[in-house]
């Protein structure tokens, strides 16, 4: 009893502290701690013209990207003197941290979003502003100013995000290895692109074993390969989607009701990619999570002659001591490149939708992030930058990340032969891929044919199909 009495003051201290803490966190409910500040600011600055406001912007990216963003933000703040942008760079575990912010009702005004992860689950809960209203009513901007496939719609008419730039896929190669082998390098334009068989033939000649024999010669030892013809074609859906589309296949049927990766077009493409590893022995085993070695190292060390990778690889290649160039992907039926890329979205909870829209526009302006566009990691979002020679020069001239083949292999491919990322139109994409990706592991490893693997999971995948975003 005495002990209890002694504890009492302590207990009440704890209770008091807890009360204090819960009061603190309670006060923050509704992302409005900072919005409340904004209102206070608004009131204070209300006297002269526009009220000073603060916008929070979250993004991921490396140091270069953060720096480029800071420049873009400075330009924006200069032309919008009443707006201060608070940039929160979250280089790792972005989705986890953003989710935590949302759970605490502390979401930012504008956020970079990833179409393969959080963007659509959030959109489906109505967390984002429909940018179409702004796009259509803004006299200085319109949809036809944008390059294809950088607009993300949750459903027709509901634009939830705009990408600061598209990223396409292409074929990178080490020029010296082709010269040394006396082989004509891959064509840079879609019209002249290699057929699949031509591509396999060249890949064979560039795959060399320990004894110096290449994969097209008798006596070639596939167990002891020192140089591979090609890498990067399998593993990630981003890479293999190019060939599924290029063979007329898709992830789901046109009406969005059926799982389609078990259909002949898709299966044939997947099998061709797996055959590169297991039948022709011209590609290394699939590497799942990380692209190791990176494209630049693989080409520089001459471990691989050709690599299929995204446009962004130009940045690292540009600063690597390697004589490389870029070409179009080999063609099964149609030349196709899949367009991927993050997007900027505006949270509905923002108190300043108009200013947020202005900020998104500024972030989409290639001038603001010119350094990234020039270095090679980004491409502009605005169509005129692909059509006006003076503007093209601005982001491609004198850049080590923009090689001879770039204009036709990347720019023209984007404008004429690009497809939207499946994450942008396949509903419930993650859950479908949770089933597809493990099954494809068996295909890449040569343990099952593409047909067997896709048939085996077709029912399970079908159960996760929920339709398409690009049709009513």
């Amino acid at each position, binding site marked *: 009893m*005495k*002990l209890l009495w*002694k*504890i009492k*003051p*302590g207990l009440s*201290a*704890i209770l008091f*502290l*807890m009360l204090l*803490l819960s009061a603190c966190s309670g006060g923050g409910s509704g992302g409005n701690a900072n919005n409340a500040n904004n209102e206070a600011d608004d009131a204070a600055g209300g006297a002269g013209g526009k009220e000073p406001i603060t916008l929070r912007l979250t993004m991921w990216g490396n140091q270069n990207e953060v720096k480029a963003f800071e420049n873009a933000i400075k330009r924006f703040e200069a032309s919008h003197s009443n707006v201060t942008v608070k940039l929160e760079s979250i280089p790792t575990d972005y*989705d*986890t941290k953003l*989710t935590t912010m*949302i*759970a605490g009702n502390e979401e930012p005004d504008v956020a970079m979003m990833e179409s393969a*992860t*959080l963007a659509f*689950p*959030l959109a*489906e*809960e109505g*967390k984002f502003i429909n940018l179409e209203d702004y796009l259509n009513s803004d006299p200085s901007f319109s949809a036809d100013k944008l390059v294809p496939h950088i607009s993300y719609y949750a459903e027709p008419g509901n634009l939830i995000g705009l990408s600061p730039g598209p990223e396409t896929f292409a074929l990178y190669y080490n020029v010296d290895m082709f010269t040394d082998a006396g082989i004509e390098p891959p064509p840079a334009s879609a019209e002249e692109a290699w057929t699949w068989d031509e591509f396999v033939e060249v890949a064979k000649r560039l795959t060399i074993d320990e004894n110096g024999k290449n994969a097209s010669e008798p006596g070639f030892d596939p*167990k*002891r*390969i020192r140089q*591979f013809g090609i890498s990067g074609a399998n593993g990630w859906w981003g890479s293999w989607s190019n060939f599924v589309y290029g063979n007329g296949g898709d992830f789901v049927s046109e009406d969005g009701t059926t799982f389609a990766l078990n259909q002949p077009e898709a299966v044939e493409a997947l099998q061709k990619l797996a055959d590169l590893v297991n039948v022709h022995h011209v590609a*290394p*085993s*699939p*590497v*799942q*999570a*990380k692209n*190791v*070695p990176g494209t630049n190292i*693989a080409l520089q060390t001459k*471990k691989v002659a050709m690599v299929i990778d995204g446009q962004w690889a130009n940045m690292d290649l540009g600063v690597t001591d390697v004589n490389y160039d870029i070409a179009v992907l080999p063609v099964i039926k149609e030349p196709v490149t899949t367009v991927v890329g993050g997007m900027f979205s505006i949270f509905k909870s923002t108190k300043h939708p108009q200013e947020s829209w202005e900020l998104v526009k500024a972030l989409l302006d290639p001038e603001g992030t010119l350094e990234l566009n020039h270095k090679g990691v980004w491409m502009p979002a605005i169509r005129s930058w692909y059509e006006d020679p003076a503007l093209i020069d601005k982001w491609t001239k004198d850049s080590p990340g923009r090689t001879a083949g770039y204009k036709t292999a990347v720019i023209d491919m984007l404008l004429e032969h690009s497809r939207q990322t499946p994450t942008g139109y396949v509903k419930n994409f*993650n*859950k479908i891929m*949770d089933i597809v*990706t*493990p*099954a494809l*592991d*068996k295909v*890449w*490893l040569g343990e099952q044919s593409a047909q067997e693997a896709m048939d085996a999971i077709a029912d399970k995948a079908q159960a996760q199909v929920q339709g398409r975003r690009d049709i009513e």
Partner: protein
Amino acid sequence: MTTKLMAQGQSPLLGKAGTRSRKQKAFLYGFLFTLPATLGFLLFTAGPMAASLFLSLTDYSIFKDGIRFVGLDNFIRLFTEDELFWKSLKVTFYFVVLKVPATIIVSFAIALLLNMNLKGRALFRTIVYLPSIVPAVATSMIWIWLLNPDLGLVNTVLRWLHLPTGMWLYAENSVIPSIVLTTMWGIGGTVVIFLAGLSGIPNQYYEAIEVDGGGWRHKLFHITIPMVSPTIFFNTIMTIIGSFQVFNEAYILTQGGPNNSSLFYIFYLWRTAFRDTEMGYASALAWVMFVIIMLFTLLIFRTSKSWVYYEGEGRS
């Protein structure tokens, strides 16, 4: 016991002459000094645990407004419908079964070596401990390189020696052993604890064996192992708990592949919570793992009486 002593005024801290006000003061100080830890525990461990227990009975998803109480639905779905739950449980058990004995045996062996009177012993100890202070991400990236089946160093060396090569992280049957291999890199912490246990063994026991004409085998099995059994006990429990919670390796090395054969439980839980944002369901997953770990810890505690030797108590 302490309270009884305090009540009788015999607390060693206070002395016999301690008055009530001094006792109260001492209690207050004690209370204040433990307050940060207590508060930390309540706010950051006990509180969230209670919250997650509650959430595990709901369909809470961060993005959705409103929480619906669903009773045991999450647990029922987990045990009856969720194939990935069973798969991840199986994968994790396999990992634990390989990892725990490997860690205990290898780190004990290294500790024995490091406990010998060698030249440069301090240097060796540093070398063994060093990898465990390198961030997991960095070591994992290096392991990805080393274990790359076609271009990695390990297979290149094996090929050069005309030995069979492996697919390592990239085949279903070798991914878990490969991950266990990579984690062996970071057992320095366990080794250090073993070393502390080993250095606590009085020399006269070994001398007694020498006098009796025993060899190293007798020393190892009759002196060393019984004397460090509390340390083995501690390390085993810590390793089991740590192994059940394996996450980084799946997150960095494999993303759960190939074919979900490294889909560790906590990785699956994380994916459910933060990618699929099903917090309620993820909380249910977390509580199942909590119970599993508790059962295993309890089991080892129960059996410990028969194999852990505490000096002064004897074996019961």
